[in-house]
């Protein structure tokens, strides 16, 4: 092996977090190599070509790409985003258009709950922005307690407390009141249940094993809205985001190797010294970052290198995926009564009430698919002609409450059933959809796990809930990216602050690694 093959840091997994970690390190002069198991980078954020039609393979919209990450990596010129309004579809045809915090019927008439909707949403965003600084740094270490040594770690919490106080007594009290409660009660205290309420409730549960009535859903809504709550379509597809981050890494000297599966770490005297690939080659390195799931990363590091208690906790990280993806390649754009051509390009939401969502959640508890799932659909080809060279269109549907552990298991029959449920549900609003389908592609949570390695096919790798966040994400005592073995770091969605294409987990972890001096 030549000397030049020794790296400062090897990053396992070229999902957007792995890439963000690599770019952050490379920009700071570290010699980095990213190892990707599959033949394509991007993980859940990638576009796949389908006979000249670019399909957003898994994720399709951005709503939380962190501005700090964009700024630090200099991404703003490399990525182009188009903000999409949301159309909350109504089975009775009274669809609602939501742009920013403003909601009105699609025909332009006023919605009776528009004012209270605006108030609730604005407050959630405000509270979310309050918490955002906690997401953009390593989770606080509270082990020193309220001592002099613990002071630096308590500062961000003290700042948060101060900012809360500065909101005024009423707002602070409101924050404390709702922060750990459920979104169902929060919304329905002030609004009639219906399409508008459903749109808010849906945003609190994407990718998660919770229904609107589950505690913690207000917090997850704050997290989702912590950068403003806008949904944006990346021009060029989701893959363009991953490639933009990858380019920053590469331009700063990082290598990205696809078809290179990391099998095991080489550990000498409790220090990472290399990575063994599946094909048997060993690459030397000073440090390793893993964007795989927490449990999967432990197995790469070797469970024997983790303490008994850590192994138990990591074995029990909750990560049962609940979200499937159905991509429908269309010969032509279907019609939805009441929507203009431009409105068809919006983010289309099927979540007609908070109650509907809770009903859909019920099925998953028993390993069943709900007959009426919650769907977020978008036809990106209407906003971005560059991705539909074939002249065809794509309807990309994120389908919520599809169980990872399906009763009877996942097979072609189950996938066909899921496709049918989704097409049937969409057809209620777009009756001509069926005639325009060219091709469908269905990914169950199990398929997503297979494809991306995300445990349980879970969006967040590790359910986003109060017992698995901040100082206990993914587990207690391993929440500050350093992952047991010296020089080993966790940098994926299962690390703080969690999933979504935000780039924070990767970026934060890389900064912590540098701070710890693990690659010098």
């Amino acid at each position, binding site marked *: 092996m030549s000397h030049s093959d020794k790296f400062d840091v090897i990053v396992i997994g070229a999902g957007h977090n792995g890439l963000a970690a690599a770019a952050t390190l490379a920009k700071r002069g570290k010699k980095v190599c990213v190892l990707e198991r599959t033949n394509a980078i991007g993980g859940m954020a990638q576009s796949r070509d389908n006979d000249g039609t670019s399909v957003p393979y898994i994720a399709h919209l951005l709503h939380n790409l962190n501005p700090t990450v964009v700024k630090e990596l200099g991404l703003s010129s490399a990525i182009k985003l188009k903000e999409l309004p949301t159309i909350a579809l109504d089975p009775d045809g009274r669809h609602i258009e939501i742009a920013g915090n403003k909601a009105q019927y699609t025909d332009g008439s006023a919605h009776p709950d528009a004012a209270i909707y605006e108030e609730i949403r604005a407050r959630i965003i405000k509270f979310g922005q309050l918490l955002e600084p906690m997401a953009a740094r390593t989770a606080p270490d509270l082990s020193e*307690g309220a001592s002099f040594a613990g002071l630096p770690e308590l500062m961000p919490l003290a700042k948060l407390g101060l900012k809360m106080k500065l909101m005024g007594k009423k707002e602070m009290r409101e924050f404390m009141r709702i922060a750990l409660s459920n979104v169902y009660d929060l919304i329905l205290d002030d609004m009639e249940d219906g399409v508008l309420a459903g749109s808010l409730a849906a945003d609190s549960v994407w990718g998660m094993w919770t229904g609107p009535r589950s505690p913690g859903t207000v917090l997850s809504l704050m997290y989702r809205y912590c950068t403003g709550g806008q949904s944006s379509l990346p021009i060029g597809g989701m893959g363009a985001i991953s490639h933009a981050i990858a380019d920053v890494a590469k331009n700063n000297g990082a290598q990205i190797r696809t078809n290179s599966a990391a099998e095991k770490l080489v550990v000498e005297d*409790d220090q990472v010294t290399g990575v063994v690939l599946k094909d048997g080659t060993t690459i030397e390195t000073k440090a390793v970052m893993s964007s795989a799931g927490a449990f999967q990363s432990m197995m790469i590091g070797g*469970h*024997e*290198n983790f*303490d*008994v*208690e*850590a*192994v*138990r906790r990591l*074995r029990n990280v909750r990560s049962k995926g609940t979200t499937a993806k159905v991509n429908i390649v269309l010969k032509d754009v279907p019609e939805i009564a009441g929507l203009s051509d431009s409105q068809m390009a919006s983010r289309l939401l099927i979540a007609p009430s908070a109650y509907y969502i809770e009903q859909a959640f019920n099925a998953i508890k028993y390993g069943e698919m709900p007959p009426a799932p919650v769907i977020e659909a978008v036809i990106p080809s209407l906003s971005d002609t560059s991705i539909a060279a074939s002249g065809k269109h794509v309807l990309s549907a994120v389908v919520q409450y599809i169980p990872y552990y399906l009763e009877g298991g996942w097979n072609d029959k189950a996938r066909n059933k899921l496709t049918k449920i989704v097409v049937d549900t969409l057809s209620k609003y777009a009756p001509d959809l069926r005639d325009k389908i060219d091709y469908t592609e269905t990914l169950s949570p199990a398929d997503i796990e297979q494809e991306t390695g995300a445990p349980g096919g879970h969006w967040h790798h590790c359910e986003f809930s109060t017992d698995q966040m901040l100082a206990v994400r993914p587990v207690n*005592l391993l929440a500050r990216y350093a992952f*047991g073995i010296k020089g080993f770091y966790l940098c994926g969605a299962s690390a703080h602050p969690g999933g979504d294409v935000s780039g924070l987990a990767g970026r934060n972890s890389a900064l912590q690694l540098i701070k710890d001096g693990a690659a010098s």
Partner: protein
Amino acid sequence: MRKPAKKTEKRFTPQKTQTTPFHPRTNQFNLMQNWDDWAGYLAANVYESFEKEYFAIRNQSTLLDISPMCKYRIKGPDARKVLDRVVIRNVKKIRTGRVGYTLWCDEEGMTIDDGTIFRFGKQDFMLLCAEHMYSWLQDAAWGYDVEVIDESHNICGLALQGPTSYSVIKEAGFKGVETMKPFDLREVEPGLWLSRTGYTGDLGYEFLTENKNALKLWDRLWKAGRQNWGLIPIGLEALELVRLETGFIAPGVDFQAAHAVSRVGRGRTPFELGFGKLVDFNKGHFNGRRALLEHQKNGKRYNLVKLDIEDKYPADSSYVYVGKEKHIGFVTSAAWSPTTKRNIALAELEAPYGDTIRDGIWVEVYVDKEGKWYRINAKATVVDGSFFSNPRTRQTPPGPF
């Protein structure tokens, strides 16, 4: 100064107290009917007289029913690896047919318990300890080719201790025991394991066998020891005194088992308990290794030490001071030791007291003289090594002392 409360807290045992396989005999001898709950089993505190039992340990031979000990069989190709993952010492160095004393820690380097590893074969071990450890050991064994079996309830144990214990074994007809050195382990007869170990610091042996063999074993030893060797059964109270004379530590008394406490900062590292030498950092990863390296770097917070206290009054639960009246710790176990004629104690002191600073330490002892309390400030000397030590404990072959 307020006197700290005596440590009488009992752990809740959620089922009916069980009897050990020796109960038909122990019950018959227990004139006092003075029983305690030991890990869910009835265990005799005193059979007849505490003094008689204590002096029998140091002058004759004694039987102690140790069946309530937790006994975990660890078997399989990875058995050694699992044990090395768990305990602080190097298990490779415990050869087949040997027993090794060790401690094990949680991820923060805090002692969970101490106990002994019996190595029956290359891939066959038993861990004997006081604290229930089954589910934790299952966690430790996850991912390994190994079987962890809780044999606490189907294997019984009998300790034969005292200067004439070898003579009893010989008279009972066990062959080849004369060559057994301290910490040796042997299957002396099919299904009957004998080790030269004990908790008394004196010459002594421990038997392990299936429950069904219990009474046969008791009767055989009883018959051999009763006539010539002064064999009597002993209870936990006498044991408590001899273990203190030897300087053995007890979980829940001299240190708090990490799994049994919920308050922050109650755990103690093996360094702080005086077992730093057992920690083998070179054997690869083991539980709490990273935390222990940190503790080693940062130094000890406490020292568990042996104290020789002037005067004759046992310093139970006493505060320990240095100089004028600087409080530096408290006594965890104390007794008047009749054999060594010393007033002895184990005490936990704030580091570096008891380690580099040993002068000027004194103990505040409260003495109840028929309902009237007296306070005595007694000088204390830190003692290295055990209070009681006698060459007969280690002599091979042992004599008829």
